[in-house]
């Protein structure tokens, strides 16, 4: 970890107009939850559903499946991609600083932003939806954190490897995880979303079945795959950064 790299990363990550987008995402999630509560107050049947599987469904669909990959994409790629595109990364690279520590620091900053704009809002959304500071809110917060860490690491690595990281990341998150993963059962085993859901399922314990939370992979498999993805992506990003070529004429 390098405090100076962290400072520069934080400033350039939050100094962009993307911050507005970062704020809009959790706002939309919380707005949706507030709307659900209003509907529940007007309609008893809706209130009963919200007590059952509807709350976890909403948290899964909008928290884990939409908010986290989008946030991970914005912060993961945003913490290093623009610097590589613009060439300002040279001010970090022309220094006696370990390349892996640059990547790890940038990942830590990205994760911190994901926690503030994603994990905390998911926890709050859980509290608003269930009306209590309970296991549902807690489980989804833990799951969101797991997803946020893995997405950030994955998309940061993509940003080091290719200039089309945002597009590829979007294709992965929207097409692979959501579309293909929704239709082809085998594809679900290779998705950060499902691995994180396995974590949620484990934290919920016995109530997972009643709440309809079910992951395509087991807890151990999910956790191992999350760890392998995060660590592997980070190590590979550092390795690639060490070999990053700068050439003004191409």
């Amino acid at each position, binding site marked *: 970890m*390098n405090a100076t790299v962290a400072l520069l990363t934080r400033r350039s990550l939050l100094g962009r107009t993307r911050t507005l987008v970062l704020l809009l995402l959790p706002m939309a999630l919380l707005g949706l939850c507030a709307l659900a509560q209003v509907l529940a107050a007007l309609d008893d049947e809706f209130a009963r559903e919200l007590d059952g599987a509807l709350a976890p469904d909403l948290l899964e669909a909008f928290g884990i499946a939409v908010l986290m990959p989008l946030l991970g994409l914005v912060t993961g790629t945003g913490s290093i991609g623009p610097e590589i595109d613009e*060439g*300002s990364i040279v001010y970090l*690279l*022309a220094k*006696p600083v370990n390349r892996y520590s640059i990547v790890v620091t940038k990942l830590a900053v990205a994760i911190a932003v994901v926690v503030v704009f994603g994990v905390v809002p998911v926890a709050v959304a859980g509290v608003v939806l269930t009306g209590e500071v309970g296991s549902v809110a807690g489980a989804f917060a833990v799951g969101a954190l797991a997803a946020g860490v893995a997405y950030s690491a994955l998309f940061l690595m993509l940003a080091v490897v290719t200039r089309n990281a945002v597009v590829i990341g979007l294709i992965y998150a929207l097409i692979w995880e959501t579309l293909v993963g929704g239709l082809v059962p085998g594809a679900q085993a290779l998705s950060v979303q499902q691995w994180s859901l396995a974590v949620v399922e484990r934290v919920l314990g016995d109530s997972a079945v009643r709440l309809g939370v079910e992951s395509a992979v087991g807890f151990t498999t999910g956790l191992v795959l999350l760890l392998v993805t995060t660590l592997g992506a980070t190590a590979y990003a550092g390795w690639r950064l060490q070999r990053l*070529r*700068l050439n*003004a004429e191409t």
Partner: protein
Amino acid sequence: MSTLELEQVSRWFGNVVAVNDVTMHLGPGVTGLLGPNGAGKSTLINMMAGFLPPSAGTVTLDGRPLQHDPEIYRDLGLVPEREEMYDAVSGWDFVLANARLHKLPDPKTAARRAIDTVEMAEAEDRDIRTYSKGMKQRIKMATAIVHDPTVLLLDEPFNGMDPRQRLHLMDLLHRLGDEGRTILFSSHILEEVEQVAGRIEVVVAGRHAASGDFREIRRLMTQRPHQYTIRSSNDRALAAAVIGEAGTSGVELVTDASGDEIVQVQATDFSAFVHALPRLASRHGIRLLEVRPADESLESVFSYLVAR
């Protein structure tokens, strides 16, 4: 004292050769890397800075290879051509951050000295995004000298500077060079290079075209054959008169695109020819309508050096 050595360095991108078999030894003092745009100057500097591995050959700093060794940056400072820095921080914060990244024992004093050297103290608290091109150039310079490097590489440092800033930077480079640092800066403007550099390396189309002190390069550039296109009241008579002059090596009567006849002259002695021409014309009663140097572009000067 540091020496940067390039031995038979080539770099290609796919089937495009950007740098072709260049051997250069850069020692203390200021060296100018001169060449037209696209000649491979930035590619060379990126290889010297350790950011681009050569496709063939070696680049070493005091015998150490430059690739994959972040420790070399303790001795090397780089001013990149691109303007982008970290826009959302102030000049002071950015130079200080660079000092900290170099792990200097007293980063604040180092940043203070670097900013004072480039005379940016007045604007140091403003965000970099508010700076003019010249101010950005000076902050870039400050980040490159903050750790007191023995080698300084500057890619087109005079771009975007006004004349006063230019003079100031030239002064600064002189001073840093006199202190025994190895300084290399690139430029596509001969006048710029000869005012600062004791030594000039010329690259054209990826090749090392010439090397030496600026007088030598200047002589090579001015004593090459010069082409002139002339229109006159009597082209044939003028052609006959011109070939009788000692400084002329060739005369041709040609028809140009609009169907007019013109005289093309190749002169080996530039000053003798331009002095002789009006004299000749008046002696033979020929009126000169147009005298135009045909190949005064920088590219043609450079390509002459390559063809030499």
